[in-house]
């Protein structure tokens, strides 16, 4: 799994490529936590390149949603692919996560 980070105004975009599982989810958690502890709480996860997630990825997402929202921010996901969306739906995560069809709309959803 590869994670690249890009700042767009007040929004930090983390682009994740690969599969999120019990091996790789910790790298995602580390990247999200590093942003939150630097004070960046307007986060977008660009999931265009994520082809798989297990419940390990769901733990990482929920932890980050809680951390960011408690600080007045959010973690929002862009371009979630159908297989990953199915895991989010099965787990009831589509009710708590804000999902956007593409990166531009996810970034634009935060105040400038």
């Amino acid at each position, binding site marked *: 799994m590869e994670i690249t980070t890009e700042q767009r105004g007040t929004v930090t975009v983390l682009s994740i490529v690969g599969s999120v*599982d019990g091996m790789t989810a910790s790298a995602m958690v580390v990247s999200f936590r590093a942003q939150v502890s630097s004070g960046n709480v307007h986060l977008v996860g660009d999931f265009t390149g994520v082809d798989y997630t*297990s*419940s390990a990825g769901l733990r990482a997402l929920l932890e980050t*949603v*809680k951390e960011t929202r408690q600080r007045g921010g959010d973690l929002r996901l862009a371009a979630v692919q159908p297989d990953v969306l*199915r895991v989010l739906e*099965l*787990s*009831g995560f589509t009710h*708590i996560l804000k999902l956007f069809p593409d990166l531009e709309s996810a970034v634009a959803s935060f105040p400038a």
Partner: protein
Amino acid sequence: MRLQIERDAHAENLQEIRDFIETACRRAGVERSAAFDLKLAVDEACSNILEHGYAGQKPGPIRISFDAASERVVVTIADQGRAFDPKNVAAPDLDSDWEHRQIGGLGWHLIRRSVDSVSYESGTELGNRLTLMKMTPLAKASSGAE
């Protein structure tokens, strides 16, 4: 057809185990969404074995066998770690808002939702044995000579 794989219970083997299920499904003619469900269920089961079954001890083997016949796929996952009956796992909370949602506890839920039946035995000659069964059409062209 029947295929088997055995790997030690290390997280770095999860990708290879998922690849095994994907390849087995393709050879058996399992359609794509059912193959994804099987891959997810097997990954979650193996993740539980390495996080809980072998917790506090040297990671031992996970032996997986894949059988496909008569519109039915049966995957058995055997390990020699601590016994862990999924019947005792509480149903997760899927409805609370984000503030009250518990982190974790979704693995067995995803397994139950992804396959049609789940059964578990401990103390077999192979150790613990989890059997996952999914009903799914198998493409005739891929049935092969096995």
